[in-house]
């Protein structure tokens, strides 16, 4: 990419014509061309270099700069009508300067030489002002430079080439299919797409251009009882993804909507759960969020050191020198890894916002905590641990800023559970369970600021008796102490049952930033977990 003006003058006009007017069949061939990230154009590179040069001349020992463009497109529908067709485009520059061991950051939408110089000077001035409050100077872990790197996420159909008509007609077709089920009265479907063009350079010689897309098509179906005394919602039916329009086609909303609508209608008369202890069989679409909150958040290194104490919270996986290599997080069959290079992941990237090329790393091995999610600044804090293990002290590539206007910090990579050795699937876990509840889809979720006590709902609950599903339940939430819940893991699915769960906006930081992230999961079974009934009358 480039400045928006150049972009529009060249590629976007063609893409725009395609998106807005070209008939479906004619468009199909063009949009299937593999997406190749072009090398960074000269004007963008010049602005990046100007920012770095200005920061260095101002006294920065290290600086990095991002010029990013983020385009968003959404259509929102309810029942047989369109609510909104929304398109947004933002472009700007964020500059981070390290002066005398202190960070300063400034961001501007003004992509002129003067605008960039001003912002770079402001970043340096802010860093200098911060010196009076410095305790320890910031140090960065070593990282090779990537002088002319490009990367693109693995989408095959760019959603920004799909016409408004195609998007709205698909959503409304899905709504109409859902409304054909008796009792179903309301349906909301929206199609949301994000495209990011990220241009990065740092004072160590990295110059990186990347493009990625993300796709999410949430659908929510509401059934209302004939006497209007009850309503029930079936949602969480599809996952966000780091892929393109091809994933929307695969989800086939107009065909699947009817099944989801039947589930909503059936929920109206579902049995309210009897509180007690149950064996839980969690589908990847439900486990993903539980793993996200109870495993992925407490293994963020900044949380472990108290950097999120005033907002997102700290972590029970702390202090690192007391827990690394010793804390039993869960059952020996629990293996958790981070990986921003995972294809299709919402947090996947070629190079992070420190210029680090990410790779897969273990976080929990055989149930024991062995590492944390890190950036270049944070990897230095674990220098002693990596030396002890004979590993290089390097970042795991978890630096991320959600916009040109946000400063990068440690954000969650795709954090996933490794499949079990046996070739088991969802139905095998149900068949092996005498008295339990099988849960699909995300529901209510809440966990304390150190991640000890979690309570999670779901979108769809089935009672399991004698290895069989006997009917739907409602008002179910499971509540646990994190390490007990993971110690109670006694069965997990094999590679064939591995699916990608994802969330589109995970919040952290002050000012708040949103991160999209994927969790690869298999179905799991957890023995004798506390289940409460969330339905109340008074």
């Amino acid at each position, binding site marked *: 990419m480039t400045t928006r003006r150049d972009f529009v003058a060249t590629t976007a006009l063609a893409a725009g014509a395609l998106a807005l007017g070209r008939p479906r069949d004619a468009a199909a061939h063009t949009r299937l061309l593999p997406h190749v990230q072009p090398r960074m154009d000269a004007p963008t590179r010049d602005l990046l270099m100007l920012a770095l040069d200005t920061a260095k001349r101002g006294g920065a020992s290290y600086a990095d700069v991002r010029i990013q463009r983020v385009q968003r497109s959404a259509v929102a529908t309810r029942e047989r009508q369109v609510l909104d067709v929304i398109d947004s485009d933002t472009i700007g520059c964020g500059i981070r300067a390290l002066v005398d061991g202190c960070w300063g*950051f400034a961001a501007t939408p003004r992509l002129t030489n003067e605008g960039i110089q001003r*912002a770079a000077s*402001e970043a340096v001035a802010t860093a200098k002002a911060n010196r009076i*409050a410095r305790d320890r100077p910031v140090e960065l872990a070593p990282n090779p430079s990537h002088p002319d790197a490009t990367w693109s996420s693995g989408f095959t159909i760019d959603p920004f080439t799909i016409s408004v008509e195609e998007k709205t007609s698909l959503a409304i077709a899905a709504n109409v299919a859902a409304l054909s089920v008796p009792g179903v009265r309301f349906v909301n479907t929206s199609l949301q797409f994000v495209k990011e063009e990220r241009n990065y350079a740092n004072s160590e010689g990295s110059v990186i251009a990347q493009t990625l897309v993300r796709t999410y098509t949430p659908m929510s179906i509401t059934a209302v009882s004939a006497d209007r005394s009850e309503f029930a919602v079936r949602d969480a039916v599809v996952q966000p993804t780091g892929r393109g329009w091809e994933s929307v086609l695969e989800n086939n909303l107009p065909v699947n909507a009817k099944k989801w609508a039947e589930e909503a209608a059936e929920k109206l008369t579902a049995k309210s759960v009897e509180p007690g202890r149950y064996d839980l069989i969690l589908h990847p679409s439900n486990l993903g969020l539980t793993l996200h909150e109870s495993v992925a958040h407490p293994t963020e290194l900044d949380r472990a050191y108290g950097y999120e104490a005033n907002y997102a919270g700290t972590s029970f996986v702390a202090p690192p020198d007391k827990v690394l290599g010793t804390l039993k997080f869960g059952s020996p069959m629990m293996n958790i890894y981070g990986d921003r290079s995972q294809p299709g992941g919402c947090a996947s990237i070629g190079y992070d916002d420190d210029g680090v090329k990410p790779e897969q790393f273990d976080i929990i091995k055989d149930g024991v905590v062995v590492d944390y999610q890190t950036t270049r600044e944070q990897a230095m804090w674990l220098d002693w641990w990596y030396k002890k293990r004979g590993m290089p002290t390097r970042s795991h590539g978890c630096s991320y800023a959600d916009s040109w206007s946000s400063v990068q910090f440690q954000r969650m990579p795709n954090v996933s559970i490794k499949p079990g050795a046996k070739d088991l699937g969802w139905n095998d876990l149900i068949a092996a369970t005498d008295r339990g509840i099988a849960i699909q889809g995300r529901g209510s979720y809440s966990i304390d600021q150190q991640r000890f006590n979690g309570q999670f709902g779901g979108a769809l609950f089935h009672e399991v008796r004698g290895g069989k599903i006997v009917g739907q339940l409602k008002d179910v939430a499971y509540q646990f102490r994190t390490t007990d819940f993971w110690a109670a893991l006694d069965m997990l699915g094999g590679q064939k049952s591995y699916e990608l769960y994802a969330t589109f906006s995970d919040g952290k930081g002050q000012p708040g930033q949103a991160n999209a992230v994927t969790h690869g999961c298999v179905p799991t079974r957890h023995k004798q977990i506390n289940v409460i009934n969330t339905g109340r009358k008074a």
Partner: protein
Amino acid sequence: MSIILDPRAPRSLFADEDVVISRADAQRVIESVVKLSKADAVQCVIRSSRTRNVRFAANQLSTAGVVEDTTLVVMSYIGKKHSAVTTNDLSPESVERTVRKAEAIARLSPDDPEMLPLLGPQTLREASAAWDEETATLAAGIVTAAANTALAPARRPGSTLNVAGFLVTGADAIAIGNSAGHFAYHRGTNANYTLTVRTADGTGSGWSGEDAVAWKSLNFAAVSAQAIDKANSSRNPVAIEPGRYTVILEPQAVGDLVGLMPRYLNARSADEGRSPFAKAGGGNKLGETIVGSMVNLTSDPFDPMVLTQPFDGEGMPLTKQSWITNGVLSTMLIPRAWAVRRNLTPTGNPNNIMLGGGSTTREQMIASTQRGVLVTRLWYLRETDPRTMSYTGLTRDGTFLIENGKITKSIKNMRFNESPLFLLNNVEALGPVRRTASEGPGTQIMPLLKAKDFNFTSLSDAV
């Protein structure tokens, strides 16, 4: 920002005399859009902001920055079709491109049978006291120095405190205008300071915060003193059996739960049978007693404690609304589209929420409590049942047991499963109100509140 339509002389971004877009510049941009538009109608929203923040944790500064941006949304209306296109490039070429794109997308969109005509000229009252010039232009050094009021004592030799805090000051402007002759503009400033103090042994944590229009209104010493006191007094918490307890909720905790109520006040959801205020058999519960008789819930953009934007996202002027009056559901939120369909008067979408207070002091509330729990704030609230507005969440950063009229010990945090409706049904006393310090603009006024039978369901080891 006066350069936005003048390509000749880009002025410096950070030294602009207008920190955010001025009324005149906003008007000029909107007029240019109306002139360029070939649609049946067009509406614009301009949002402009500049914020400065300093963040610290683990007894040292972590990040600090200054950010500014201005965005333009162009909404084009053609027949019953419409679209919205946003850009943050306000150059003349970009503005024209955005208008053309909005029109092209609108043309391809299906008809919206509920599409409303744009609002015409409105009588708007200004809220000029929402702007403080000093806050809008604060220098980096001043904010860092304020952070030092917490960092310095924590770093003193012998200190056993670990501090983490966030200071943010900002200026925002919004303008809404359209081809039907409506124009609304508002600008405001905000200063917010929140602080969490933890004890070095990891057993105590205290939180405090303030939020105001003006930087000079923030009392840094008071925030630090309160968070430090809570951290020290919450050390070594003991477990109590979860169950139904009388609670005294500090205003922040009240806001964390009661602040969730406005989203349920929508008349349409109730009339459609999918809201806690839906009536079996049809209709809604307007006019029915829904909570205790001492409860009054209102919104008012001109209340001096929470001056907020005096119009909503559509540009509808906002006035004082009484949602709950002496326990009775007295007004429901009526969106324009629903007003047209049901022949009602639209209320606009409020920007603040206020729960009325009472005359009971904190000391009186504690003294009158045989056994109860004092709560500083709540955390991670998520809906568990939309039918009853039920939520789960946890206490955080200072939870204490009251026995025989006195605070006796620090207790472990607990998870609750509770509805603001049930809480307000069980109110026993209301105390002084304050503006809460939730991150972002201060949009809540909440009282100290005592209620019976608050439903704590499990213990948490989190500090």
